């Protein structure tokens, strides 16, 4: 038994295809993005080593920092929106009839491609014929803004479809966690005269704390990686007002053909994401819950 299942050739045969793909297409490129960051390179021609220049450019580049700021703002909004999703899940999980079908309806936007969502919401936000402004004009607001063309509004306007898209996903997770709470616990509290609020705050929420922490990491790290939706909806505009880290990197590399600087930004994106992941997990995950992933 032991001999067969610890045969080195067999192990290699089974692990190698996946491991090779992982190393060659994910880990090595990640390492290379740091290396390319030291180069001056237009993607086709010669690569010239220029030391830390790209990284210094990055540190001085206000456009880069504003994209970082926008990414963090979206991460903050996403983390805060979890509270709303949690509240909805609490209602949904309290023996509501039809909760199963409701939660399946909530999940529908999550199944769509970001491109489709972006194109749909471009139409929703259309200044004259869109769903939103038509509605606002119908209720008497005469001059509703052109949401996606307004630098001061665009980031919020982009966040709404994100909220819409992910609602079902987080509600699903919280719902499952809430349903996992032993009914006897809730029953016992009720018998002792606890109100529904007390049951929610003193029994249910503490019991799903672990799941909540995991979703905070998911929401924050996920937001730092946003690309498709923003790329399609605004391309980072108007005038960089909705630029995020990934879209800025993409623009520098594949639109301005500055692959060296693009790689440096890509590498900074990696470092920032990993650092934030680490910090958020340190702040939220206690020792016994370590390795929950």
């Amino acid at each position, binding site marked *: 038994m032991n001999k067969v*299942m610890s045969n080195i050739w067999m192990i290699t045969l089974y692990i190698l295809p*996946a491991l090779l793909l992982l190393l060659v297409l994910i880990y090595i*490129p990640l390492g290379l993005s740091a290396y390319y960051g030291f180069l001056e390179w237009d993607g086709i021609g010669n690569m010239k080593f220029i030391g830390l220049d790209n990284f210094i450019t990055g540190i001085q580049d206000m456009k880069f920092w504003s994209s970082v700021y926008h990414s963090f703002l979206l991460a903050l909004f996403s983390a805060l929106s979890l509270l709303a999703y949690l509240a*909805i899940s609490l209602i949904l999980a309290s023996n509501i009839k039809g909760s199963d079908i409701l939660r399946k309806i*909530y999940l*529908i936007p999550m199944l769509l491609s*970001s491109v489709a969502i972006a194109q749909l919401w471009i*139409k929703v936000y259309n200044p004259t014929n869109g769903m939103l402004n038509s509605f606002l004009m119908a209720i008497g607001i005469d001059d509703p803004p052109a949401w996606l063309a307004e630098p001061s509004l665009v980031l919020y306007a982009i966040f709404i479809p994100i909220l819409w898209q992910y609602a079902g996903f987080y509600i699903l997770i919280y719902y499952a966690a809430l349903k996992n709470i032993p009914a006897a616990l809730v029953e016992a509290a009720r018998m002792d005269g606890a109100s529904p609020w007390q049951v929610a705050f003193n029994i249910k929420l503490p019991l799903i704390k672990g799941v909540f922490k995991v979703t905070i990491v998911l929401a924050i790290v996920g937001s730092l990686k946003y690309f498709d939706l923003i*790329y399609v909806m605004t391309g980072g505009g108007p005038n960089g007002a909705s630029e995020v880290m*990934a879209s800025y990197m993409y623009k520098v590399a594949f639109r301005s053909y500055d692959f060296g600087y693009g790689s440096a930004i890509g590498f900074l994106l990696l470092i920032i994401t990993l650092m934030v992941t680490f910090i958020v997990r340190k702040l939220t995950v206690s020792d016994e819950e370590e390795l929950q992933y």
Partner: protein
Amino acid sequence: MQRVGYVVLYVILIIIAIVQIFPLFWLFLFSLKDNQQIFAKSPFSLPDHPHWENYLKAWQGNIGIYFFNSVWISAVAIVLTVLFASMATFAITRMKWKLSKLVLGLFMVGLMIPLHSALIPLFKLYLSVDLIDNPISVVLSYTAFHLPVTMMILLGFYYTLPKEIEEAAIMDGCSVNLLFARIILPMTTSVLSTTVIINMIYNWNEFVFVNTFISSDQYKTLTVGIQNFIGQYQTDWGPIGATLIISIVPIIILYIFFSNKIVEGMSASAIKG
């Protein structure tokens, strides 16, 4: 009093449900309108008569080709992802070797990595082996980047498989390959179907790899293709709506038939166990 509260909460839940599906309903409405109705009448009005020709117009672009590419690229990537992930999960959970924990860790860290950080080097890598504007680059990228989440879903299941079964099989002289192909894989069909469906959704909706690696129309998938199509028909809302509906319908049909699997896969992809 409690009854009133219950009704209020119920109404909130139903309003949220409407918010979640109304934009899609509105999309369907304008996919059946012509420009005159769209620009002259209320966006909430029903089409005078359904303009199905919008769908014809959408289909006459390259949507047919994009659709076909989405199907086969997704399918090939799914087969590779699920097969390789199963093999790797089998090796990690059932076989005995020193580095298994470390390798598992490598896969799990892969869950957190922003793919955009790897994009430029990947582009350069494919360029150097002449795979740019070749769908193989997309298939390989889908497979590699979806291995971690697929393995995460599989892991929980593999840990629960009883050791006795494989012990008995090995005692009877069954080889590792037979054990994997004939005994383990069939036992995991339920969780395998979950991973297939989750990968289907991911691959069908993927955008950035195709947008970066593919330039010819003949290899583009739906997400990138509709993006081009819409660029050409900017003011023609009807065909744009029709195109979006065409890209959405397969996923919705999948959801109608496999909603439980999708729900299960979505939660498993987020939180282990």
